[in-house]
């Protein structure tokens, strides 16, 4: 019994972190005030509505899960989301009447996107309805209007491939009761319109917290640590609060907006899951919306606990030698890299984050940054896993995490060894 409960909790936690969870919202006039365009609902084929829907579909990054890059058929589903509990496969959301959502009413669509309720049961929060719930009904129906214009693709998807007992969708009633705050975004009148627009996007369509907010043991958001960083799928999604040492404190609003628009700024480059997010979603958003997101994030306090821990002097010495030999050619001897090309390690808060998953992963496996229309270069970091042993990678990562004013826990050889495994 005990172990069964634990498994269920793990399943939920895993499914949440594997996907893109997002909150749902109920409508109110004030919510509509910060929603995209404030137009009244229009006919489904109204071009402006469809355009707005396409924009929101991209902003909500629906394609990340619902388009399987292997099939090349937009929104026909079939992209598997691997979890240690099993696989959840994203649904076909084209207007196909048999295998897609062609027969759904607007209400059914809204119920699914914002409330996690399907005609035949509950959604798993791999579908980020806990975030989408913050969106306005009009915005969700705009998405619906856009999806209706897609070419219907017949592609039957068996979404729930989880083994028993995780396959019991009814479990989600319990989870929703605990962690699902089924409310639309409520604007904060003490903040600017820009701030509120940013909050609406971050909490709703953008579902940033799905990756960047720490989760409790059941996979629910730790609301009081919102945006302070979380580890999932072999990456640490870093702290995106305004925290000076761990978050975006050194980034200006323009730095954040540039990063989201182009994947690059004077300090950092997006790769891995964030690279995908930039390519599919934020690079396609308008500059005012990205300014709004940046404004909101810069106002998130986020005092994360200090990382400092004793660091072995020998390890630092070895790390320094390796850094100078192998890293300094690109990242520069002073760790400052090359703006928009090679990330600045000296001023990077994420290399010194409390969790070293990303830095270890990037050194072991390498990583290619995203290429966008504005920053087409897409430079890459080579893999060093074949060249350096576990101790050497631990030493150089420890050195980077504790140089140029950084103070962070040392990296162990065991962590490197673990990161080598697929």
């Amino acid at each position, binding site marked *: 019994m005990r172990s069964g409960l634990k498994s269920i909790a793990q399943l939920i936690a895993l499914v949440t972190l594997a996907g893109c969870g997002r909150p749902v919202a109920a409508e109110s006039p004030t919510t509509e005030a910060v929603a995209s365009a404030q137009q009244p609902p229009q006919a489904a084929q109204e071009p402006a509505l469809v355009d707005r829907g396409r924009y929101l579909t991209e902003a909500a990054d629906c394609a990340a899960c619902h388009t399987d890059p292997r099939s090349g058929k937009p929104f026909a589903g079939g992209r598997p989301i691997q979890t240690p509990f099993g696989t959840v496969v994203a649904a076909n959301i084209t207007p196909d009447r048999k295998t897609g959502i062609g027969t759904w009413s607007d209400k059914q669509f809204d119920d699914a996107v914002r409330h996690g309720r399907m005609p035949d049961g509950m959604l798993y929060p791999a579908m980020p309805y806990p975030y989408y719930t913050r969106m306005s009904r009009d915005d969700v129906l705009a998405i619906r209007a856009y999806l209706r214009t897609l070419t219907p693709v017949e592609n039957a998807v068996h979404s729930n491939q989880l083994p028993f007992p995780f396959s019991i969708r009814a479990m989600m009633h319990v989870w929703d009761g605990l962690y699902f705050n089924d409310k639309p975004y409520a604007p904060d009148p003490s903040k600017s319109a820009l701030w509120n627009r940013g909050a609406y996007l971050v909490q709703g369509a953008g579902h940033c917290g799905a990756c960047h907010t720490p989760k409790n043991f059941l996979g629910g958001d730790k609301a009081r640590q919102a945006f302070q960083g979380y580890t999932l799928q072999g990456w640490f999604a870093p702290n995106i609060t305004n925290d000076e040492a761990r978050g975006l404190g050194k980034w200006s609003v323009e730095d954040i907006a540039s990063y989201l628009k182009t994947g690059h700024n004077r300090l950092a480059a997006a790769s891995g899951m964030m690279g995908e997010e930039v390519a599919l979603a934020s690079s396609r958003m308008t500059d005012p919306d990205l300014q709004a997101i940046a404004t909101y994030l810069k106002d998130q306090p986020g005092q994360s606990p200090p990382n400092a821990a004793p660091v072995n002097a020998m390890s630092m010495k070895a790390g320094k030698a390796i850094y100078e030999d192998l890293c300094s*050619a*690109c990242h520069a001897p002073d760790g400052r890299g090359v*703006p*928009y090309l090679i990330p600045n390690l000296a001023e990077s808060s994420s290399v010194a984050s409390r969790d070293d998953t990303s830095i270890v992963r990037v050194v072991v496996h390498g990583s290619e940054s995203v290429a966008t229309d504005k*920053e*087409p*270069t897409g*430079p890459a*970091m080579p893999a060093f896993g074949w060249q350096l042993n576990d101790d050497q990678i631990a030493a150089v990562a420890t050195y980077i995490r504790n140089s140029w004013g950084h103070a962070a826990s040392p990296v162990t050889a065991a962590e490197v060894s673990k990161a080598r495994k697929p």
Partner: protein
Amino acid sequence: MANPLPHRDAVIIGLGWTGSILAYELADAGLDVIAIERGPWRNSATDYAPNYAQDELRYRIRHELFLRPAQTTFTFRNKMSETALPIRNWGSFMPPNGVGGGGVHWNGETWRFLPSDFILRTHLTKRYGARFLPHDMTIQDWGVTYQELEPHYDRFEYLCGTSGTAGNLQGQIRDGGNPFEGPRSREYPNPAQPQPFSHTLFAKAARELGYKPFPQPSGNMSRAYENPLGVRLGPCTYCGFCEWFGCANYSKSSPQTTILPALVRKRNFQARDNCEVTRINLDPSGKRATGVTFVDQSGTEWEQPADLVVLCAYTIFNVQLLMLSNIGQRYDPESNQGVIGRNFSHQTISDVTSFFDRTKFTFNPFISSGAIGMCIDEFNGDNFDHGPHGFVGGGYMGQVQTNGRPIETTPVPPGTPAWGAQWKQAVRDNYQCATKPGTGVHGSMYSYRDVYLDLDPTYRDRFGRPLVRITMDFHDNEIRQNRFLTDKFAEIFKAMGALQTVKEYRKAPYDATKYQTTHLCGGAIMGSDPRTSALNRYLQSWDVPNLFVMGASAFPQNAGYNPTGTVAALAYWSAQAIRSQYLQNPGPLVHA
């Protein structure tokens, strides 16, 4: 019968520098473009990552980035009376392979030719009289002038982020630059690279001898750069692994670091790698190309129809494909008729190795970049009076040492045993205090009636097609030019304080086993007269107007510089003509 593919507006054969430039320009003009490349796709970070790219054995000795002779090769002979034999190991030049072509493994020297180089026959005849030229020298004017190419040189340099010091800014001669260069419309996009110790001393000695030394224009970045396409390069780290190697520090201008990232984002561009074009297809009139036939890795033959064909392969393979496709009349040296294969040339290179007092000089030769160097141009082109010397042509010379790599950088004084303890001791003693510029004298090679390309009568490639045959030797004019230049070069090293200078003159016969740059030129040359040129001034085939042929194969003769800047300027010049004239009214751009 080859499998037909959907029609395209334009097909590009070869995706190196010129293929990338033309593909970008034509896609930018809205055409549906496909590029077909014989070799593999190459990506900076994954194909030559900086943590293994510095491998002299793999790349320099074993030719990792070059064509495999098993894919195709060529045959060689010095004289028309000899039987050519196939080359089985690259020697005097390195045929490139793969996306980026020679632009991946070049050093980055980004020169412009002299204004007089483009009107060579007219200029020399006017100054010295027609009888001053050897009777069998077939040099020609290009049909295009420096002034016409200037904006296109400029465009390429800004694409590349070339590092240099202007010597002639809009007609004004400037200290520190090359005073002999043609007027440039603006400064280089980046300042010159700082120079290593021996290069700096060479410049000082040259200045004291009355010359005007200047930094070699370099495709290695002196600082971070964003080019007009939004593609970014990083500062060079002076690792000394440049020529023969790819640069994954994003510090050497190459198609990968300047143009391909923007090109691959264009939805109307597509590339096929590991596919070799075997023929340009013509309609029954023989006056119009209908597309190309290519073979993929599995051996399957495909036909790619297109309205416009742009041939962008390496010099000798451009010429070979024209011959195999029966485009243009083949050159016959006996009758001096025909155009395809004529005016083939290379470069006249020599070196001076100098030994210095090791208690006084520590050069650290490993601190270097591909196009580093301090040069003088007093003896290039017609920058000096050839009257007293009895030869024409010339070249730049300079301390352009690009590396101190361990396998090749073992200069020892003459008389040292070739192996054993004494050799090792001599290498140890001299590594830090010898200079070995490599291609220190970079002389021109002019064209001659008996230096040409045709198809080999005996040897065939893996598809059963005849190999291209090179017939080439040095002529007396180039040998004398080289002796004069090499002596001048050695004088500067003596003035620099060398204890001993060892001159390695270029001698006949031309040796196909010794590296002499990859600058093969000519064979499908541009000009004003269809009887003596394959292409008009816009690089358009006289015979097949919907075929354009890029590259150094268009050079009527080679100048005393590295060719890439001129190759690229011609590509932009041609692209502009296609975009602004040809596409509106497809047909011959010049009526002869």
